[in-house]
């Protein structure tokens, strides 16, 4: 079976006002992942 996640998050490229909170994935293709482990992070600007 498969799960697809579609979600909004701070843009990965700083927008016009240089928002430093951009979202970044912390995974690679083919990685094994488990429930609760981070897929990605962002910072609160």
């Amino acid at each position: 079976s498969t799960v697809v996640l579609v979600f909004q998050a701070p843009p990965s490229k700083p927008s016009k006002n240089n928002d430093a909170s951009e979202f970044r994935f912390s995974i690679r293709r083919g990685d094994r992942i488990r429930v609760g482990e981070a897929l990605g992070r962002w910072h609160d600007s």
Partner: protein
Amino acid sequence: SWYVKQFRTTSQAGASVSGGSSNSQGNAFLVPGATVATLLMLGVLHARRLYDDKKVEEAREKGIEFEFQPDAKATFMRMLPLRSISRVWGFLTNLEVPVWLRPHVYRAWARAFHSNLEEAALPLNDYASLRDFFVRTLREGCRPVDPDPYSLVSPVDGTILRFGELKGAGAMIEQVKGFSYSVSSLLGASPLLQMIAEKNTQDESINSEQESTQREKSKKSWWRISLAYPKVRETVSECPMKGLYYCVIYLKPGDYHRIHSPVDWNVLVRRHFSGRLFPLNERATRTIRNLYVENERVVLEGLWQQGFMAIAAIGATNIGSIELFIEPELQTNRPRKKLLHSEPPEERVYEPEGVGVMLNKGDEVAAFNMG
């Protein structure tokens, strides 16, 4: 060949001495012969599967990516009654296993599919059927949630197939190199997603020459959408420009098959697509078109701190059931007279409208199950 030789010499000897007895001796070899032949065939098929998998793995390590290539097997798959096969499998795996046999069966399963039995919450004897065992919970603390408040966590155990950023309402996700499917066909006609895409488009195109027509169009769809989601309109219209991302995670048969919440969010809508039940293994993604869009699936959609959130749980032949803990009465993989691809999903807006069901990061949301 040994059996065939025996068979031939015995039947010849029989024929010469007395006609009737040779038949019965021939029959005596039939069952063992058929059994050996079947085992041999299964062995050859398994060896071939392992060889194919090895080839794919080696190619992947070399960085070679297979392209979309339908083949005869995929065409044949379309002819099979996969939903019925899946339900029969569910029926068989739901049969109660004698208590003394349970540890042996579940250990054999774990060995075959590389499951970690140490994490099972209950003693193996407590799982009455393979189906019960398959949807087992884990011992407390086996899946700690990432403590970083600015992290989005995985909802399932599995393998990362694809991930990235999506652009605009017609955004596509690559199923395999050479074939993609649209996010809107996977999630269904989602006013929420459309609102966000249009808002993003609106933000980006605010300086473009077509400003007036764009604004007109957006205004019209705004009206339609905000009628449907008045509370949500404020949330989305006020948030600054956001990126839209996706991540595709494949669960092997031996993986832990419960789905957890990736963030704190409000589930507003649930969509259930009755669909095919093709296998979802690596080979199927390369050979079957629209695999994720045609398969039976349940989509949960809503809002979180950063905006839009949707989880699509897609079933497969052996794992055709998707059970929602927030809506236990939902039943998937039910017998259907006709399965129309264009059939709209069965949709439910969770009460109270615009607020829905609140979930915290790490909460159990749903489970896949056999059949």
